[in-house]
């Protein structure tokens, strides 16, 4: 079965958002399929985070349709299938009384019953497994506020993975993370995509981070342009146009080789 015949995880048709007379997003249509590794890039203020928030039901579009796993957004209930790591990982309140384990446990809450004050054996197993996957198991008793940016980022992803999602959406995950941690992080994402078949959607304003593993690229700057082969990013004239900085693209392309 070709990829186009499957029900997409996300299907967006003719999405528009106008705020106070200003067009924020115009006529966005895209599909995200199972097991894909996608990057959504675009300049700051181009509407990437707004698009993601609409996909997750946090913001409402002016017009257009969003379907998740084939269901209309308002009828979709299985939110545990979607793991979301928001932009402000580095801005989390450092005095909040939460250990690494407490935060990762949050990822299981929506699937637990009321009055269940102790984690089930299954929950404990999953929590341990995702902490090990994200290499934070040894930190489980540490307070999240005391961790480095890179460690905190892995904890947030472990929490998103704890609900056993089919798709992981990461919004600017590298904010406040050092370069070494970033490299490690890309390898982990590629591994999750390859081995656990988790769909990855990676949002960034920095086109330099685009790794070899990314199969498709959406560029958002009010409008969307889809490039099905990121290796040929230079020949995607539209992307260069929409991004507005062709020399920047050239520079990073050279870096990749």
């Amino acid at each position, binding site marked *: 079965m070709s990829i186009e015949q499957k029900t997409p995880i996300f299907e967006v048709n003719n999405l528009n958002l106008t705020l106070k007379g200003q067009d924020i997003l115009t006529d966005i249509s895209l599909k995200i399929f199972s097991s894909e590794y996608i990057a959504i890039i675009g300049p700051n203020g181009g509407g990437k985070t707004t698009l993601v928030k609409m996909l*997750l039901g946090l913001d409402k579009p002016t017009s257009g349709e969003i379907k998740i796993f084939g269901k209309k957004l308002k009828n979709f209930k299985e*939110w545990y299938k*979607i793991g979301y790591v*928001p932009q402000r990982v580095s801005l989390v309140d450092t005095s909040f009384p*939460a250990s690494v384990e407490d935060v990762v446990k949050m990822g299981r809450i*929506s699937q637990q019953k009321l009055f269940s004050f102790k984690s089930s054996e299954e929950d404990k197993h999953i929590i341990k497994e995702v902490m090990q996957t994200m290499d934070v198991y040894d930190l489980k008793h540490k*307070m999240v506020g005391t961790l480095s940016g890179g460690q905190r980022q892995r904890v947030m992803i472990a929490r998103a993975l704890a609900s056993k999602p089919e798709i992981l959406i990461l919004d600017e995950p590298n904010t406040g993370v050092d370069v070494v941690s970033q490299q490690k992080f890309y390898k982990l994402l590629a591994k999750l995509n390859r081995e656990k078949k988790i769909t990855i959607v990676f949002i960034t304003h920095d086109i330099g981070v685009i790794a070899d593993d990314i199969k498709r690229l959406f560029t958002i700057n009010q409008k969307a342009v889809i490039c099905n082969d990121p290796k040929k990013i230079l020949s995607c004239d539209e992307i260069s146009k929409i991004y507005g900085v062709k020399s920047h693209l050239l520079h990073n392309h050279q870096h990749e080789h």
Partner: protein
Amino acid sequence: MIEMLSYDFMQRAFLAGIIIAVLASISGTFVVLKRYSMMGETLAHSSLVGVAVGLVAGYSPFWMAVAVAVLCAWLIEYLRSHFSLYSDSVLAILLSGSLAIAVIIVSLGGAFNNSLFTYLFGSILSVSSEDILVISIFGIISLIILLVFSKELYFIAYDEEVAKTSGIKVKLLNFLFVTVIAIIIALSIRVVGSLLIGALMVIPTVCALQYKFGFFKTALLSVLFAIVSVISGMTFSYYFSLPSGATIVLSILFIFVISLMVNKQ
């Protein structure tokens, strides 16, 4: 201490004070973590409007306080969730505005007497057995609600947006939470006063946070601090003939200073 406890009114005062210390500090843990501290103060003052209406119109000031505090809590939560209007200034306007309205209602009604002062500063020594029964019943219901949804409320306090995207009914739980907070505040103002309930709600948790424990230990520690400050505050009040609300708050402030010093890095 034993002599003090030989009086019925002191026994009732201690019982009411401890119940309110537990209620205020447990709910206060969520209030502080959700950054709703200012909201506690605002609801305490808005419930005075209910007291004023009750005093003037001849209804029960207590039930009117509950009704007005709950309505005000819903209004604040509605403004916050629909219009992102949750700045300190909006709360400050509601806080001082409701105090002004309460004073005017009482003055116009010719009922500006000790009754309003009772609700402003509390009257822990005039607590009746009936008061204790009402506080206990509603207090237990409120605690059960907080306990049942504690995991969800903790998640929402940590990251409301992610809690929402993981399928938790954030809007509904936030409304339920502010309703419970409004009820606890309205229950407490008769005993500790609207000017002081905010302190009993917020400061024990702020003290406990200084020790950098996880959530459960922080909540337990804040309950302990609140109970200790109520008992010591009331004891000072008895032996030095000082208003109990003020001695309770000074006791918590003392614990706060000690906590800051102990945890100074």
